[in-house]
């Protein structure tokens, strides 16, 4: 299994509070991704990173920001959490050695509930 951990694994917070989720990898992979999973929508990309301090938006980036100061860590921040951000969040990594056909390896997920 790829070495990917996410913290926290579960979090309950209140509307309007800031929340930061952490993804940590031990594989030294270049690409890292944040997805959210919601019933009926599959997984949707929030943001991704293609290197230290290099990030770009995904399909559902509004209300989220990311940072990557080290290869191994990719942080997802909800500046002011809303109930619509209640979801399961997955981090994924990819070596990008063969381009768009690379496999993405997923972490165990973080279940976030915004009350």
């Amino acid at each position, binding site marked *: 299994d790829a070495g*990917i951990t996410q913290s926290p694994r579960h979090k309950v917070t209140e509307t309007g509070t800031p929340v930061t989720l952490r993804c940590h990898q031990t594989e030294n992979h270049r*690409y890292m*991704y944040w997805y959210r999973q919601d019933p*009926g*929508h*599959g*997984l*949707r*990309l929030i943001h*991704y990173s*293609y290197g230290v301090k290099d990030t*770009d938006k*995904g*399909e559902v980036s509004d209300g989220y920001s990311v940072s990557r100061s080290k290869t191994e860590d990719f942080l997802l921040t909800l500046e002011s959490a809303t109930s619509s951000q209640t979801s399961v969040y*997955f981090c*994924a990594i*990819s070596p*990008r050695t063969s*381009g*768009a*056909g*690379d*496999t*993405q*390896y*997923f*972490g*165990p*997920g973080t279940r976030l509930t915004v009350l």
Partner: protein
Amino acid sequence: AQSVTQLDSQVPVFEEAPVELRCNYSSSVSVYLFWYVQYPNQGLQLLLKYLSGSTLVKGINGFEAEFNKSQTSFHLRKPSVHISDTAEYFCAVNLRDNQGGKLIFGQGTELSVKP
């Protein structure tokens, strides 16, 4: 824009029966195709992927999928399922020239294998 449609949200099947999970995609350019599986309370893991060559792709746990370019489909099959195959299955596509590796997922199909 690219999209992925999984035609069945739930598929109940008896143990040792064959199963097919259907996936259709829409894209004006060439794509790579993936099937991922998510066991309860876990992250996603790759079952198989089509990059090029033979249109019949074999994956882990006895699964296989066939790429049909004319019908823009990538259906997943297994000739005899086990209880342990109970999980959610996701079809995904990635554009061949996509530098960001941004997977586009279908809505998911819940496979429920009954004894």
